[in-house]
């Protein structure tokens, strides 16, 4: 299958899903309180666009700030853990332990410490995306071919030189793969935090809308989240192609 038919097929599938949804709801006479039709969702989005905008902005803001710090911490930890066997063995059990805690469960603690609002959302978005980045970056660095490392060491390269010239560039494909996962996870984190404890953000808006049975608005919120998630994913996919395209030669 060539690239064009593939694009055509995937677009067709997306459009098809929405058309089916619309027709199914119409045919089965499903109430908009249960499952609004796509057209009703779009109508709700247009009607409430002014009200949605600040919430969307808040969610985007907390997600991006949390993601930024998550990447910073994840990358540094990944480099640290990946470049030392001792650090790898020491820190890994702790990391696995922390990562296995459902992040929803820590939101109340953040609220207790920092009060409801922006800070817990940022923190949740941050911690939820650290782990995949750490795992990927450290794997990329730790799996440098031993022969390559021998070549570098025989040139009397320092650890830092090996890391900079070999380890880091080598881990870039892993890093960008993890960024695509991390950015979507960050949205999960901030929306969860907004749902639990905030008076702003798309998560909060959806909570309020659902409690007043404004189901089309709830779905409009979902659409906004999906749109933001997809856009950021796309941005990182482009970045990945530019920074680590050498690893994807088989697909070109």
């Amino acid at each position, binding site marked *: 299958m060539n690239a064009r038919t593939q694009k055509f097929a995937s677009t067709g599938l997306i459009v098809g899903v929405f058309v089916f949804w619309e027709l199914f709801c119409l045919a089965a006479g499903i109430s908009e309180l249960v499952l609004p039709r796509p057209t009703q969702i779009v109508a709700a989005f247009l009607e409430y666009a002014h009200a949605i905008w600040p919430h969307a902005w808040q969610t985007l803001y907390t997600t991006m700030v949390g993601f930024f710090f998550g990447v910073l911490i994840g990358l540094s930890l990944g480099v640290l853990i990946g470049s030392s066997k001792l650090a790898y063995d020491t820190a890994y059990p702790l990391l696995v332990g922390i990562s296995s805690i459902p992040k929803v469960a820590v939101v109340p603690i953040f609220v207790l410490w920092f009060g409801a609002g922006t800070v817990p959302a940022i923190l949740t978005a941050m911690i939820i995306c650290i782990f995949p980045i750490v795992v990927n970056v450290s794997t990329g660095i730790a799996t440098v*071919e031993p022969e390559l490392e*021998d*070549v570098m060491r*025989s*040139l*009397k390269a320092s650890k830092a030189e090996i890391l900079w*010239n070999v380890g880091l560039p080598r881990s870039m494909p892993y890093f960008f793969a993890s960024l695509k996962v991390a950015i979507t996870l960050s949205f999960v984190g901030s929306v969860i935090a907004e749902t639990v404890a905030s008076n702003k953000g798309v998560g909060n808006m959806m909570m309020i809308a659902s409690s007043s049975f404004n189901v089309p608005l709830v779905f409009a919120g979902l659409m906004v989240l999906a749109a933001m998630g997809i856009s950021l994913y796309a941005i990182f996919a482009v970045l990945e192609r530019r920074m680590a395209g050498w690893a994807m*030669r088989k697909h070109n």
Partner: protein
Amino acid sequence: MSDDRFVHLEKVSVAYGQGAEQTLALCPTDLMIGKGDFVALVGPSGCGKSTILKLVSELLQPSSGNIFFGGREIGAKPIRVGMAFQSASLLPWMSVRDNVRLPLKIVPPFKASFREKKDAEYKDRVDDLLEQVGLLDFADKSPWQLSGGMMQRANLCRALIHDPDLLLLDEPFGALDQFTREELWQTLQTLWLDRKSTVILVTHDLREAAYLANRICVMSARPGRIIEDRTINFPRPRSIDVTFEPEFGALVQELRALIVHAAPGVQEAAA
């Protein structure tokens, strides 16, 4: 210091593991290699050939004995080493030129002026070498666009670009087909005749050793020891035809018999 002792291993042995489970990889070995010499180490697998390379390149510490370079203890004065292995392990995110240029970024004195010179003097230096091995047209290509033989040419260039005092080759042509391998023998011979660097070549291929080296050290099975040290006098430059001469065939036969019938080194000798 004399030139015939450029590299000097004195009663060097290597053991892996601890206590009762200790296994001897290399029996106490004496080896002297002259400056500008081309020495091949041959022997069955696991006999400690690569161990000797690792010792000389300071990737491995000997369990006993001393190693000298130019009369001084190892580490006293840094010597420049170039190394190439069977897998070319070129960096896939760099062009062939950047791969070959990498040692200049790391090895003194080149590294001090890498920033200013990398696009001028160093680029010419890399391109000259690439031209010599017939890779200049591929300088801007990515490593994965090259054939196996070309990758090994680039690998050789990377090992030579910083003018190493010592070139260490660990079965560099082991994964190549016969024709490509013979082409690369000639390339390597040309480079060596041109530069007269000191070379230690580890190989399984006795024809390769006999064609390339001035001297062949035959090693026994593990724990390794040198059981034969032979000078090879075919005139240079050698053409591939030399490998079909009866004298060459007889030499290869003889070396083969030595390896097959060699007893392993004596374990007690380590203690």
